[in-house]
Every structure is written in C-alpha cells, then in structure tokens.
C-alpha cells in the first residue's frame, strides 16, 4: 500500500519516457516516407504519425493497450483471436512443465542429498545442463517425443518448460534437505531413528521453506520455457506462437500485445505461487523460519 504512489510515479515517468522514445525512434520512418512521397512534414504531423504507425519501431503505449483491449476484452475467450484463449494454452503448458519440473527437481535433490555418489555425479551435470541452449534441444525433443509416440505438442513443450524449471527446485531442495544441522540430526540418532525416518521426519519438513521459496523462480522459468517452446517448435498456438506470427507477418502490434499479455500472465502466476507459499507457511506453523 505504502508503495502505491511511488509506483504510480515511476510508471508515469516510464510512460512519458516511452512516448518520447516512440517519437524519436519512429520519426525516421515518417521522414523517409515523406521523402519517398516528396513532401514536407511539420513537427505536429511528425508526432501524430509516430503515434499511429502500423509498423512502429516502438509502439506508443496507448497502441499496445488498445491492441490488448481488443484481443482480450473485445473477443470471446473461446475465439482463437482472443489473447485469453492463447494465454490459457501457454498456461496449460506452463503448469504441466512446472509439475514435471517440481517432480524432477525433488527426486534428483533427494538422490543427491541421500547419496554421496549421487551428489558427486549428478550435481555438476545439473549445472552443465543449464548451460545447454534449450532452443538447440527443442527440435530434438519434439522429434524424439514424436518417435516415442508422445506426439501431441503439449508433451514436448512441457518437457522444454520443465528443463528450465527443475533447476531452481533442485538447487533449493538440495539446500533444504541438507539444512538440518548436526544437532538436529544427532537428536534423531539418539532415538535410534533409521535413515528413512530421518528423511521423512526431519529433512523433508525442514526443506519445505526452501521448496516453496523456489517455486516462484521455477514457475517463471517454466513460463519462459513454455513461451520459447511455442516460439520455436510449433508456431501453432499459445502466446509464443503469436509473437512469432506477429513478427513474421509484419504485425508488430500483435507481437507487443502478446509480449505484454505474457508479462501479465507471468505476474499472475508468480502472485498465485506466492500465495500458495504464504498459505503453506501458515500450515507449517506460521511465522517459523
């Protein structure tokens, strides 16, 4: 609440800068066009033209807003032209990839924490895996999923999304599962607890704050993965595909609107996951840790 006014101020400042930049960046085209047509443009004409180009270098904010308005509010959400419809497709991919990522991250982290050999072998490769450009793997993942019969594009897209989202979960869970200190571990040893009991009664519950803290990063990563997957592998549906088509068919407004819709969706996702985290904290004994 305290930050409403500063945020509004900053946003207002950004909008002003944006408009100025739009005029500056788009005016070249206007002048070129005038030169091609052999006419002079006044400053007023120049400014008004830079605000309403069909293919601006940088669209004015109101152009993006009106495009987003048209494609969200003014379209039925069942229509393919609706940004909400496309967003739902991306959302589905994201959630599936997020789920795969969580499972993968938790399972790997468990292996890594419980076995020294697992830690020595897997951890470096987990780091290396994140240095491989996912776009290079995308076609291979699509073709291989095709080959094993998981042909619907949803699965390979989700795999790509999970490839990015498992890592933050893994790192946090490794930290979390190894967060119990010697004293806490020794306590259970004085009870003669088995490794399994130590895992279920101590390591896993101790890791929960780390787990939930990683979810925000993971869901954002899954979302980026989903968009990249749509952008590169299918161009069939979803916000990523829409960006690509917007770019290819000379409709930058579609691209900008898709980009901003993606940001809104990501913000919503992060907010939702944040709420889940808060709820979970409460369930785990509230203020603790």
């Amino acid at each position: 609440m305290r930050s409403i006014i500063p945020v509004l101020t900053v946003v207002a400042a950004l909008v002003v800068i944006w408009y100025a930049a739009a005029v500056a960046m788009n005016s070249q085209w206007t002048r070129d066009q005038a030169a091609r047509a052999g006419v002079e443009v006044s400053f007023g004409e120049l400014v008004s033209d830079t605000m309403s180009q069909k293919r601006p270098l940088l669209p004015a904010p109101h152009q993006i807003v009106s495009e987003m308005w048209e494609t969200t509010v003014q379209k039925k959400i069942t229509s393919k032209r609706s940004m909400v419809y496309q967003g739902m497709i991306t959302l589905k991919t994201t959630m599936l990839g997020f789920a795969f990522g969580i499972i993968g991250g938790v399972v790997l982290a468990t292996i890594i924490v419980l076995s020294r050999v697992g830690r020595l072998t897997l951890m470096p490769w987990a780091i290396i895996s994140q240095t491989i450009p996912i776009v290079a793997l995308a076609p291979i993942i699509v073709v291989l999923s095709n080959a094993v019969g998981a042909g619907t594009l949803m699965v390979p897209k989700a795999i790509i999304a999970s490839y990015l989202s498992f890592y933050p979960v893994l790192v946090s869970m490794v930290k979390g599962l190894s967060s119990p200190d010697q004293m806490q571990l020794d306590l259970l040893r004085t009870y003669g607890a088995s490794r399994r009991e130590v895992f279920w009664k101590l390591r896993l519950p101790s890791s929960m704050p780390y787990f939930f803290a990683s979810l925000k990063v993971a869901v954002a990563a899954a979302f980026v993965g989903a968009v990249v997957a749509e952008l590169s592998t299918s161009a069939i549906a979803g916000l990523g595909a829409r960006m690509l088509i917007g770019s290819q068919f000379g409709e930058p407004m579609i691209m900008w609107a898709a980009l901003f819709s993606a940001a809104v969706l990501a913000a919503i996702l992060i907010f939702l996951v944040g709420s889940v985290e808060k709820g979970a904290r409460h369930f785990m004994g509230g203020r603790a840790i």
Partner: protein
Amino acid sequence: MIERIGWPVGFGILVLALWEVGVRAFGVSPAILPPPSAIWAAIISSGPTLWGDWVQTVVKGALNGLWMGTLAALVLAVIIDRFDFLKRGLLPVANFFAALPIVGLAPIMVMWFGFDWHSKAAVVAVMVFFPMLVNILGGLAAVDTMQRDLMRTYGASHVQTLTKLRGPAALPFLFNGLKIATSLALIGAIVAEYFGSPIRGMGFRISTEMGRLATDMVWAEIVVSAVTGTALYGIVAGIERKVTFWHPSQRG
C-alpha cells in the same frame, strides 16, 4: 579431489557410451540423434568454423551483453538504493519487467540494433539486467541492523556505508547473480541469432545445420556451448572464491 572429478566424469563417460551403443543398436538415424563419435568427428573437422561462431556469439554477443547488463544493474541498484522513494516505486515495476519472457524481445532488438552482434548483446543485457538488479539490491539490504548501526555510531555518510559495509556484504549476492547471468547470457545470445544474424554464430549454425540435417554439427555447437557455459561458471566461481574468501560458504 580425485573423487570430485572422477565421479562426474565417469558418469559422463557412461552416458556417452550408452548413447553410442544405443544409437547403433536401435539404428537411430543420425539425422535425429548422431552418435557421440560423429559429434566428436564434427568438432575435430570443423575447428575454424566453431571458433568463428564462438567469437561471434560468445565474445561479441554474450560477453558484451553480460558486462553491459551487469554494469547497468549495478549503477541502477546503487541509485535506487539511495532513494527510498525509487526503491518502493521501481522495484515492483522491475519485478514486472523481470517476469517478461525476455526472449520475446529478440525480434524487437534485431529490429532496433541490426542483425549483427549489437542486437545479441542488447538481448543479453536485458536478460541479465533483472536478475543482477534483484540480487544486488538483495545484497545491499543483506547487512544486519547491528552492522549498519555500527556505521551510524561512527557518523558515517551514505557513501561510506556503501563502500565500506554494504558493498562488500553484497558481493556474495553479486556473484550468485553472475552465476545465473552467465548461463542466461549464452542462451540469450544464441536464441537472438534465430531472429536474424550474419552468417556466423552459434545460433546461426545450430538453426541452419539443423535445416540441412547436419545434426553432428548441431551437437558440436551444443557441446561448445556447454563447455563455454561451464567454463564461465567455473571462472565466476573461481573469482568468487578469491574475492569473497571471507564468506562462510567459501571457507568450507
């Protein structure tokens, strides 16, 4: 030490062996998945090409973008940190922008900065900017009240507190951010080449070689990228060990 190298390398060799044998046993077309031996052969025979691509993408695109994005984040973080009003206003906005799938900006950057490495560096700079900003701001805020109060009892100025206390205290966070940023930088530079590029560069090579089914060459680039990424990570980790030797996590 032997174990710390031996196990991961052994695991890698095992995977490669299974891959080689599996590809041959099931007769997988090399156009889909080439055997490691073919990838190795491609690396050996295309040295100059790989080198040229590496210079274009890593040196010109990724590293330039990395330092620009990091520097910008550093400067902005210090400014934001100075003014509470800005911190409260800019941080939520920055978080919103951080949520943007930045790769979507690649076609726009190509449109703005041309098809050569400048646009790649721009994509990389934007991509690394937000994680760096968030990490640095987190680091600057990470000093405990006691340490800050100590500076107050000395009547230290803002700049003094920044250079003598909060700057050093933020270093571990900065390196944390850098570790994330290096891999983002590579990926960003490669992806951006998909949206227009000169006829060299790792992203260019990956996309065109994939088109002519020269998957061995695609994997050769993937290997180069992974090795580069791992080396960058290692370098950052090494510098981190040197610079933040005092941090408990580095004392082991």
